[in-house]
């Protein structure tokens, strides 16, 4: 089980703050592919991810119980 956190426009597009999916041992890139098709989110290409609050690379592995955040371009300040 992986928890996916959504923010900003992604949160609005999906109408929820998080989704939970039954996966583990896949890469970040693979996870994004799955989300693109399952949730019809074409704009994920430009979106960073964090695993357990640390920025992740596309090749990083997502494990059971991880919290993955989808991070659109930030605009703090």
């Amino acid at each position, binding site marked *: 089980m992986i928890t996916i956190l959504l923010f*900003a426009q992604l949160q609005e597009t999906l109408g929820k703050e998080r989704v939970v999916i039954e996966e583990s041992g896949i890469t970040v890139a693979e996870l994004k592919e799955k989300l693109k098709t399952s949730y019809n989110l074409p704009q994920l290409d430009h979106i*960073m991810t964090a695993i357990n609050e640390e920025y992740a690379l596309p090749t990083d592995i997502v494990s059971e119980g991880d919290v993955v955040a989808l991070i659109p*371009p930030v*605009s703090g300040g």
Partner: protein
Amino acid sequence: MDRSLFEIVEEPIQVDKIIEKVSRRDAGAITTFLGTVREWTMGRKTIYLEYQAYKPMAEKMLVQIGKEIQEKWPDTVVAINHRVGQLDISEVAVAIAVSSPHRKAAYDANEYAIERIKQIVPIWKKEHWEDGETWIGDQLEQTAYPKGEPFLKEE
């Protein structure tokens, strides 16, 4: 690194308080930066802004920026508060205070902090314009992370 120096807050930011946090007997210079809500952007009128944060990670990233500054300018002390929620025109979204024995480091470290905030801290801004609303990708209206992975330090 004292984590209370780096906070995501919901209440209005008080500049005095953040200056107090960095004030000390061996400082000769304290710089602050306030990012405030501007009414006009490229001819478009803002009514108010909304900031959203991935709070635990955002605070971690502020702490990381503090560490980077400590390495580059070892004599400085820095504190950063970023507000989330709805902000009206002229309200303070972010406040950065840096104290240093000498002024050059206080200016440079402060400017570095705001640059890094805009690169790596997971906070998003929604503009509520007079004629609509938009989540802002980034403030330069560039694409995501033009400088590469956001967690890489710039040299």
